[in-house]
């Protein structure tokens, strides 16, 4: 899958500028992902592509529009050295898979990579190297396995934790 590489501290105003988030229309949000920071992204991104970033990805506002826009644009996973806390929760809650991985410097923009969602194994096919991303904590994996928080609360609820 094609990699879209980003640096450190990519904030929610960069992912989805506040002036464009006056909607809950997911299709529309998919079209505005990185609209000013990287205008070619929403036009060229293909289903299954992967975002790779440095530290503190998704910092800033609590707006869930940011992970929603990334997911709606077709991105299948985000790999970063660290994630901002609210972005991390929001992504888990809407079923956008995230992976924490210290080795994102070994991935460049445009590389072709694969990630095993169960084991966290990252295969950089362009560079012929393999490394590991951290799997999610068991508690969060349960939410992801249900497809997000809404389904988790409908089926399990907080009483069964």
């Amino acid at each position: 899958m094609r990699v879209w590489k980003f640096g450190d501290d990519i904030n929610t105003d960069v992912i989805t500028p506040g002036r464009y988030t006056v909607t809950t229309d997911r299709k529309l949000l998919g079209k505005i992902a990185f609209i000013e920071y990287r205008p070619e992204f929403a036009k060229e991104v293909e289903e299954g592509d992967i975002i790779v970033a440095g530290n503190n990805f998704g910092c800033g506002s609590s707006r869930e529009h940011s992970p929603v826009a990334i997911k709606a644009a077709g991105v299948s996973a985000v790999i970063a050295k660290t994630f901002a806390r609210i972005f991390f929760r929001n992504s888990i809650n809407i079923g956008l898979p995230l992976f924490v991985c210290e080795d994102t410097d070994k991935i460049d923009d445009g590389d072709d990579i694969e990630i095993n969602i169960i084991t966290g194994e990252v295969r950089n096919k362009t560079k012929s190297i393999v490394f590991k991303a951290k799997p999610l904590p068991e508690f969060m994996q349960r939410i992801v396995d249900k497809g997000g928080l809404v389904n988790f609360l409908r089926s399990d609820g907080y009483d069964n934790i």
Partner: protein
Amino acid sequence: MASTITEKILANASHQKEVVPGNYVVADLSYTMAHDSTAPLAIESFYKITDKVFDKDRVIIVFDHFFPAPTVAGATMHQKSRKFVMDQNLSGFFTNGVCHQLLVEKFISPGDVLVGADSHTCTEGALGAFTTGLGSTDIGGAMATGKCWFKVPESLKFILTGSTKKGVYAKDVILSIVRDVGAAGALYKACEFTGDYVKNESISSRLTLCNMVIEMGGKNGIIEVDQKTFDFLDRRKGKIFRSDKDAVYEDEYEIEVENIEPQVALPPVVDNVEPVSAVEGKHIDQAFLGTCTNGRLEDIEVATRILKGKKIARNVRFIVSPASEDIYFAAFKKGYLQDLVKAGATVCNSSCGPCIGRHEGVLCEGETCISSQNRNFTGRMGHPKAEIVLASPATVAASALAGKIVDPRDYI
């Protein structure tokens, strides 16, 4: 075992004797909050889970991000949230202030657990409560169940000692802390402020400190209650928790505030902080005084002291938004708003104002705004090629007067 205030509040709310960092807990919530920008998505999630809120008196909706609606899209978002408020018969629905300020004035008590669909929900922790920002789906779940899961955070302790020099304020102190800690330096952590500086400062200044914890990645800001807190809370009692003397902190920062100068955060990130002298003379087009960071009465008072009887520079538009109706009225009663308007200010309704670039003063290409808000990200206040400089209310007011960025100490 010894615990921090944050650990004690989370243990209490999750009905456990004690918790330690890394534990996952499900806590009972005192309140949930969403605003006009985040509520519609939260409502969509909510109705997929249930059709009745857990408590109509503890689910709060505030219109502050774009109120009154500046666009048809905004009005449509409001219509959706308003229907939810009516259908659920919520008692806490407001259009007269910034959400965090209203929560501080009307709801939060020590020991409370608040989740808000706004990242600056760390603000309210200045009253000795655990308060944190979440996204819309989390808030949808919270409105449905009255509960939320948390990972108990490690705590950082900021011991602030001494007093600031004239012309230096809590905003300058927190900006210098953000510079030292970095935009990700407190990721996932509880940030506890203590020391004689904090004790001597007003509730308003304490709120400013906690407000910007998120700009270091922090989960919550928190300050133990004291007599000032009780005086502010009036009849709200709550449950008092204090950190044990031997509580474990992941890191401690000892900061002597006396040496801090007026600070500015330069675009495009909040930890790009320099003393104001680094950019003295930089041209500005707009100055903004307001927001959950610095839109309170004492902020407006400082600005008025600088601007009373004078006129702002012709090249500047100066926008003021008192953070709540109570502050608006108090500032009016004291004559501050009249003085500011006479000096050339445009006073807006109590809301987020132009902070998020949706109304009441957006920037065009090439413009610079000096603002008392908390974020300077690219494109936040309008055009992506506009610049935002963050500073204290005094620096904002003095710069509005001079038409360029100046050191406020020369104007006080």
